[in-house]
């Protein structure tokens, strides 16, 4: 059963249509990427999932039904705009926020030290939040989102203030949580992280879904016949069956002519006795897909207007 089902939701603020038509579903045991440029409607969609806003159209199902106060206890949320009490210490911050997720004092006392240890915050727990670095505050905020062991985890830009070591720490944690069967929605602009972590994704812009599917499906959908090769010498200016050759650093990007496949090009390269260090079919990066889809979507909107 899908943990979260978002079905054609829409939301306006005055004249502004923040979300026009968004649908997707998220399953247990997966990391789902909710992607989109700034102002695309991601945060409004999340706030509707969290029942902060009520959709004007469509419906949202959480854990098999509408949101209830009880279900809020099973959700962990890391908002884009981080929020901890600045004038109280980290331990008290986390204890209070965990209490609001229905944890008892005993449960908190039992779990908090391990979380602080994992995020290397043990010796900073008595410091006021404002005395911590941005990265440390973000780690503390992540503890607040996860300490109550929620079934659903919604995290907005989880790596924004983290150094590479802590980024890896959080990535490992997210994978671990996914493997435990948690449902994770991740919003981020860091497409390389999406490529590494997300099982499925949805791309929205102007409040509408532009793209949805598994990472593999999406990449295949946007795949071209282009190949990337690395040679141990220069390439001739032209090759039979190759429409164009572009130099990209150490690589050459070859675009096949109509009717030619990457296999045919490989055969050509072998026939020409060109020494190859690597040969790969050029899969479009998520960054490229993101830009392409968003631009096409915006051009389409302009034409409609």
């Amino acid at each position, binding site marked *: 059963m899908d943990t979260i089902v978002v079905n054609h939701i829409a939301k306006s603020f005055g004249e502004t249509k923040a979300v026009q038509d968004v649908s997707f579903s998220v399953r247990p045991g997966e990391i789902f990427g909710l992607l989109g440029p700034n102002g695309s409607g991601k945060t409004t969609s999340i706030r509707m999932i969290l029942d902060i806003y009520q959709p004007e159209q469509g419906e949202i199902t959480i854990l098999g039904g509408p949101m209830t106060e009880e279900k809020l206890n099973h959700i962990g*949320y890391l908002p884009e705009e981080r929020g901890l*009490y*600045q004038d109280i210490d980290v331990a008290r911050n986390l204890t*209070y926020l965990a209490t609001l997720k*229905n944890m008892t004092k005993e449960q908190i006392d039992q779990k908090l030290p391990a979380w602080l240890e994992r995020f290397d915050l043990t010796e900073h727990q008595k410091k006021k939040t404002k005395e911590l670095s941005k990265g440390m505050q973000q780690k503390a905020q992540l503890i607040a989102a996860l300490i109550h062991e929620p079934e659903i985890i919604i995290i907005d830009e989880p790596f924004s203030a983290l150094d590479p070591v802590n980024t890896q720490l959080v990535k490992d944690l997210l994978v671990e949580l996914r493997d435990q069967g948690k449902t994770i929605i991740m919003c981020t602009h860091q497409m390389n992280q999406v490529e590494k972590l997300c099982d499925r994704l949805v791309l929205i812009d102007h409040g509408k879904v532009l793209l949805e599917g598994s990472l593999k499906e999406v990449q295949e959908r946007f795949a071209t016949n282009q190949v990337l090769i690395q040679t141990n010498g220069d390439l001739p200016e032209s090759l039979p069956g190759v429409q164009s050759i572009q130099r990209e650093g150490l690589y050459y990007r070859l675009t096949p002519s109509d009717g030619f496949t990457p296999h045919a090009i490989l055969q050509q390269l072998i026939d020409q006795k060109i020494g190859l260090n690597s040969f790969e079919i050029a899969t479009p990066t998520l960054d490229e897909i993101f830009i392409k889809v968003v631009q096409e979507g915006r051009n389409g909107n302009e034409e409609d207007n």
Partner: protein
Amino acid sequence: MKKIIDVARYEYTHHVGKRRFWVALLGIPVGLLLIMAVSMLFSYLSLDTEPVGYIDQANLITQPQEVPEKLGFMEIFIQLIPYANEESARADTENGTLQGFVVIPAGYQSTYSVNYYSNKLPGSEVTGEINGLLRQNLMLREQVPHLDRIEEGSQISLQSLDGRQSSDGADWHHIIVPIAIGILYFIMVMTCGGYLLQSLVEEKQNRTMEIMITSMTPNQLMIGKIIGNLGVGFTQILVWIVILSIGLLIFRDQIPFFDDLNISAGYLTISFSLLILSFIVAAGLLAIIGALMSTLEEGQSVNSLLILPTMLPFYFFQAFLKNPNGTIPRVLSFFPLSATFSLSLRMAFTSVPAWEIVLVFVILIVSIALVFWLSGKAFRRGLLEYHKKLKLRDLFVKEEKNG
């Protein structure tokens, strides 16, 4: 319910646990007491307590001044010493033994005027002692019965037209209760309301609010905050009551009406219920302000507009004294923010119809429901609008969520 209690507990301990809370809490009464004590001490020390002489040329004084066996705390006694003639009294005044002397002339009983000789003006304690001595001896001469009662004056009993409320004229001190309630309400709105506003705006500014309302409903959050801050207010009141009680016990003998103070439990219950309900209305309004404003400074400037109506009964105090059931006192009783002081004040002076009391309570309860509904909307809309100030009408732009 647990989450409401959690929020209330956090709000309460967050404020009460801070040193600045206790400094402010104890600072107000201690500061007031210090000012009073210092000013009393200065006036006490500046008093001239040297004796005053008198020359009785009218042979009026048959009963000399009574000398108290023991003086009370900071009590003043000016000794009046009889002198045979002006010369000896003048000599003692010049050498500083006396601060001055008074001559009761032979024809005093036709003029009732005396002459006081000194190089400085006599204080009220001097003239009081002289007048007392003269009055007492005049009365003795006239053989007036019940002299003490005449000196005390008459007691006038008041009765309302419907006969339900009466006053024996010594009830003037009952005004203490409504004034105390009015001041407490004002202080609570100022301080606890201020804390509430500060807490909301801070949570909005530091983005904690988004976490909070994904853990509970906006109304739960608001109720928890109001209860917590109400607790802070009651802690303030309790501490002040304890300090006041200790003061009253220590200075019991110096407070003339203390033994006569007889306030009905029903009246106190109504007054304190009004205080709580009015504060909840004010707190709800402050929550709306906190949700709509984006900075504490903006919130505080709007907050001062909210405090103004709580002061209205003080401005129209004369109207309450003149006719407690007049239009202005009645209108102010029906206005939620001024109801506490207005109704309590009216009830101290006159008989307020039962239906009016009930109506005031109904208005307050309806106001609470209305303010809560509105602040729930304000929370949902305003608390996540970090970067802009919202207007009240924005709350009615299509936006809804199950509270």
